[in-house]
């Protein structure tokens, strides 16, 4: 018989190559003949035959054409298994790399993660991006694309590390720059960028996005993904296993980025207080990551000693330089209008004392106030030159309210820093005093610039527009300068964190949100006439009534006895302990996606330390594959 094979490398216009073959010939033989005929000398090892009509790869070279059931009318394409893909990372940056188009998406993701040095690839998957038609035109040209297509496929086997990064990133400065992009958090985005992004307005919108996950058991080509297509690499299963900042630099960074965008785009709901804390953490992280080049620290123990010695030095000199002799004004509680009086203030350890005048400051103070455990709040308006520090000082009878009015920014920053430290029981001698002053000043600066330019100048690193740190809802609700004190307020609790700790804290707070880790599908429960939403979490399924928007039912996986998918009528049936049975059809997603989510989470929970590095792919496939796995 004759078989015509299109050889992709000859160009799309080239006519198919026709071969005369025997149906008993094995696929390897076909390829051999084909290569001979093209008379092109090159490395064909990555190439394989793709059967277009059946949408399948002929990867078993020992199988005969007969066995595959291939006849003369079969349209075969000879092409490389690895093709370039435009991969959108959680941090919003697009990477061009060669991904495997012939193996299951699960394995493709494993390959990608190996190349990017992300451990636990089972937690990630590929998502088809939301339409970007409009943006494509104006943005595509400007967008910087990081190119990794030159990375030899072989090097992706077991990454050995040089300077803490995989060998292939150590090749050239360009590659190192890419690794830096992967492993260092991005600066806060301009508020307009946040505002422009697509935001899911409702659970149903989210359900539509969650319906775009690729099928892990089939390959990219089978799912209509073409060369140079755009896909998103995202964390899909929110069960993060064995987080180890030492080895997970890229993983942590990308997870942080995904979490940050989830917050900024209100993909997950949080309260205003939480938003301010997230904002403060973002500010802190972006600040620290600029000054701290590498997350990896040399040796914890040596660092300890170092910091101990360092702070000792600071203390020694700090001790002698108690902040005093600054004049501030003061108003004790109760509204005695215009109640500000001028006193001579002295700051010592964690207390402030005040005197009638400087001359009397040698004697007994009028009053001494210990600030430990007190609440410190700013009341500042830079344009009006108002620099108030509001202190709520605990006492047996309740809290005493005291205001300190500073004359200028400089004085305010110092005293504010002192009060904040003292409230946490630290004296001015503490090593963080200077950095506290610095951060207060930079927040003041933010207030100045943001009121002036209305946030058009994107971050000249000293002053970040606070609108870059919160979701658009708060852009409307607050002016940037109104946000500043609120974020600063939250900031005082995190200002001391190291970069890694701050990132971890961000992730923890994110994970503690009530809706964390939920993926949604619109479903129709058996016997019900209305659409409802099924939320799939790391440890449970929830049923959400769309009308009320409330969780009406929760089922936990560990009460689950079995689940089935009837692929013919595309219905998922689940049985829980206590004879609870539910069944539903999926509206916004294929039921394979739901099946994969449930099986995937079960799989995630089977990972244990004993099995350490080896990923039980077979088990994953069994749990998520559906009928393909049979």
């Amino acid at each position, binding site marked *: 018989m004759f078989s015509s094979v299109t050889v992709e490398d000859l160009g799309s216009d080239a006519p198919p190559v026709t071969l005369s073959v025997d149906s008993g010939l094995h696929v390897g033989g076909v390829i051999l003949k084909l290569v001979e005929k093209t008379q092109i000398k090159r490395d064909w090892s990555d190439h394989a035959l793709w059967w277009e009509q059946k949408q399948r790869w002929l990867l078993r070279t020992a199988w005969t054409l007969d066995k595959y059931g291939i006849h003369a009318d079969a349209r075969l394409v000879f092409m490389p298994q690895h093709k370039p893909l435009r991969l959108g990372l959680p941090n919003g940056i697009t990477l061009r790399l060669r991904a495997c188009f012939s193996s299951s998406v699960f394995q493709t993701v494993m390959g990608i993660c190996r190349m990017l040095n992300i451990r636990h690839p089972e937690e990630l998957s590929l998502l088809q991006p939301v339409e970007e038609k409009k943006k494509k035109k104006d943005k595509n040209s400007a967008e910087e694309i990081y190119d990794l297509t030159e990375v030899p496929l072989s090097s992706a086997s077991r990454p050995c590390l040089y300077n803490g990064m995989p060998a292939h990133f150590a090749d050239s400065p360009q590659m190192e720059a890419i690794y830096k992009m992967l492993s260092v958090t991005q600066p806060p985005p301009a508020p307009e960028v946040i505002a422009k992004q697509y935001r899911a307005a409702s659970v149903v919108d989210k359900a539509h996005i969650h319906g775009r996950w690729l099928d892990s058991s089939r390959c990219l080509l089978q799912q209509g993904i073409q060369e140079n297509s755009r896909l998103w690499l995202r964390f899909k299963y929110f069960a993060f*296993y064995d*987080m180890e900042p030492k080895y997970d630099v890229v993983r942590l960074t990308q997870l942080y980025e995904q979490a940050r965008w989830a917050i900024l785009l209100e993909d997950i*709901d*949080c*309260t205003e207080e*939480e938003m301010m804390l997230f904002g403060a953490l973002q500010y802190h992280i972006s600040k620290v990551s600029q000054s701290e080049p590498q997350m990896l620290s040399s*040796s*914890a*123990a*040596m660092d*300890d000693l170092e*910091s*101990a*010695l360092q*702070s000792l030095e600071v*203390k*020694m000199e700090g*001790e002698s330089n108690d902040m005093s002799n600054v004049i501030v004004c003061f108003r004790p509680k109760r509204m005695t209008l215009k109640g500000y009086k001028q006193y001579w203030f002295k700051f010592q*350890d*964690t*207390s402030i004392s005040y005197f009638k005048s400087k001359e009397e400051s040698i004697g007994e103070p009028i009053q*001494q*106030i*210990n600030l430990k*455990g007190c609440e410190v709040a700013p009341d500042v308006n830079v344009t009006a030159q108002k620099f108030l520090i509001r202190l709520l*000082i*605990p*006492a047996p*009878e*309740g809290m*005493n309210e005291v205001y300190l009015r500073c004359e200028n920014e400089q004085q305010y920053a110092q005293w504010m820093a002192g009060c904040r430290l003292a409230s946490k*029981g*630290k*004296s001015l001698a503490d090593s963080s005093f200077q950095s506290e002053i610095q951060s207060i000043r930079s927040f003041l600066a933010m207030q100045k610039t943001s009121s002036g330019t209305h946030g058009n100048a994107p971050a000249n690193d000293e002053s970040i527009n606070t609108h870059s740190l919160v979701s658009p809802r708060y852009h409307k609700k607050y002016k940037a300068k109104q946000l500043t004190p609120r974020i600063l307020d939250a900031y005082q*609790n995190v200002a001391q964190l190291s970069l890694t700790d701050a990132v971890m*804290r961000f992730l*923890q707070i994110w994970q*503690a949100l*009530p*809706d964390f880790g939920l993926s949604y599908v619109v479903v129709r429960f058996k016997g019900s006439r209305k659409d409802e939403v099924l939320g799939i979490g790391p440890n449970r399924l929830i049923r959400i009534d769309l009308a009320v*928007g409330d969780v009406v039912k929760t089922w*936990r996986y*560990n*009460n*689950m*006895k*079995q*689940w089935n*998918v009837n692929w013919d009528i595309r219905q998922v049936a689940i049985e829980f302990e*206590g004879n609870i049975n539910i069944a539903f059809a999926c509206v916004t997603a294929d039921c394979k996606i739901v099946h994969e989510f449930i099986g995937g989470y*079960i*799989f*995630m*929970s*089977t990972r*244990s*330390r004993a099995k350490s590095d080896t990923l039980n792919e077979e088990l994953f496939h*069994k749990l998520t*594959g559906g009928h393909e*796995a049979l």
Partner: protein
Amino acid sequence: MDDIDAMFTDLLGEMDLLTQSLGQETVPPAPLPSTDKEVNYSIGYADLNESLNELEDCDLDALMADLVADLNATEEKFAAQKEVLKVPSLPPPDLPPPPKGLSTHPASSLASPASPASSTSSNVSTPASSTASPLPPPPPQVPKPTKEEMEANIKADKIKLALEKLKEAKVKKLVVKVLMNDGSSKTLMVDERQTVREVLDNLFEKTHCDCNVDWSLVETNPDLQLERTFEDHENLVEPLSAWTRDSENKVLFQERGEKYEVFKNPQNFYLWKKDKNALKDMKDKDKELLIQENFCGTSIIVPDLEGVMHLKEDGKKSWKPRLFQLRASGIYYVPKGKTKSSRDLICFVQFDNVNVYYGKDFKGKYKAPTDFCFFLKHPQIQKESQYIKYLCCDDAWSMNLWVTGIRIAKYGASLYENYKTAEKAAVSSVWTNRSSSTPSSSNPSTPSPTIKAKSPSQANGHAPKPQQGPVSVDFGNVPPPPPPPPLSVFPHPTPPLAAKSSSKPAAPQRHLPTNFPPPPPAMDLLPPPPPPPNEDDALEAPPDFLPPPPPAIGFGSLPPPPTFNSPPLPPPPVSFRGVDQSLPPPPPDPGFLPPPPPQPMFTGAGAPPPPPPPPPPAAVPRAAIRPSGSVKKMPPAPPKRTTPSLQGGDGGDFMSELMLAMNKKRVH
């Protein structure tokens, strides 16, 4: 060596400075009430004399021995120090402390009274160990220390030693009267560094109770009609220092089932919405799973609580119903006419600066709708105030849900650590009780060593001192005639050690010169006995699970959530301590200035010395006290309002009072 000496001279001068500032701290802040004008050494007593007289003989001995040992210790510390430094011997870096439950063992009881030598050496080791391992340079990290490194290390050693001493000098001690269930009371000396857990262990030894996890220290305040169970990781002295001078507050030693109920029956808190009958007979395995899920993951999960409670608004008399929600970040309420969506929630309170208290008989006192009330306030508030937030629940069950939920949000992982430690204490107590029935362990000697034996160990977190090494290492084997049962229980003494030291990173951390990064304690302390905990975990882990092939998959034996055995176990406790602003109440690291309490009514034995005389003896604050006060004067009432210069004298008064009390006892 010259520069080191110079440095010491500096340090001494430094210490002088510090002590002077200590004096200033004791000036009570004026806005505070007049109740705190006097210096107080005791809790629960009208005056010091009474408290001293109430001390049991053995306690008194212990107290005395403690103080005397301190004096000697500090003196000898300096003497010993040179040798120590010359021989930078590497003690096994991570030797665990002797197990708590075992301290009745003779080996550890030798610790104190008449052996200043032993306490000396343990004191010497204090600085090194308290800085969590880096100090005696652990071999792996410094394979071949260069000469400079060696010198640097020695220098650092010295500095830390000196820092430690500075701290020692300011350690506050309180005599605390603890009321027992039967109306009797015990009197304890509590050091400001001691955690509630340590005090409880101490009480276990004194009372011979069954040591179960429910035993708690409870604070009551009749003015506010409040009750609060101290958390085991808290330092006891701090909250007690907030009491007013004239307060009728009490410390009770009681079994409180609700303290750790969440770990015994997590389903009642995490699945409270479910059918209560179904929850009753939940399998242990599922309970375990719930705990793992919520306490052992990368983030602590707070129970999902929502419900109507009555709120007594700032200073108002009426109680108004409101729909409240608990989140990790605080309590929120749903404003009228708004949805329950997160962004509409109004923050009612965050937990950084408040503790949660049970209110007693609020129906009578505040006309609350029910008696199931709790409230949140700053720990310093001792009287009625508009800053106290009162809430009233429909029933006891939901009140417990809320209070426990708030504690989880506030304390996070420490709560679970506390529970595990308490459990181990309970288990090892079984063991100790058994062995104490054998003739060899002498009870009379028990109480006295406790203070001594404990304070070093709690200051250190672990005892790296070589001499002690063998003792604690051999511990499991040495015990006189180990009866058969212990063998089976034997594994326990070891894990507790590891867990003990790693479970309270807060304690060692407090003694670090500054804000050390938190991770080291947990990670560094873990190595020595690594297998036991893991094995435990592994045993309970579900190796039996092999997911059968789909489509029908049986989940009778579902595996635990991924986090179960997860290696990040060490990191979480550390990082969680800070999560969601739910920092543990004591400020994480007071730096090397243990910050003065807002109302410094109590000053401990470590009153500062007069000016800085020549190095060795003068650097020893306690040594300075002895000459000044030991035998001379009759004790005047605790002096009012101190000034720096008076400070030394105070210490002396305290000492002489103590001596007097002792003599009295002896005469009788």
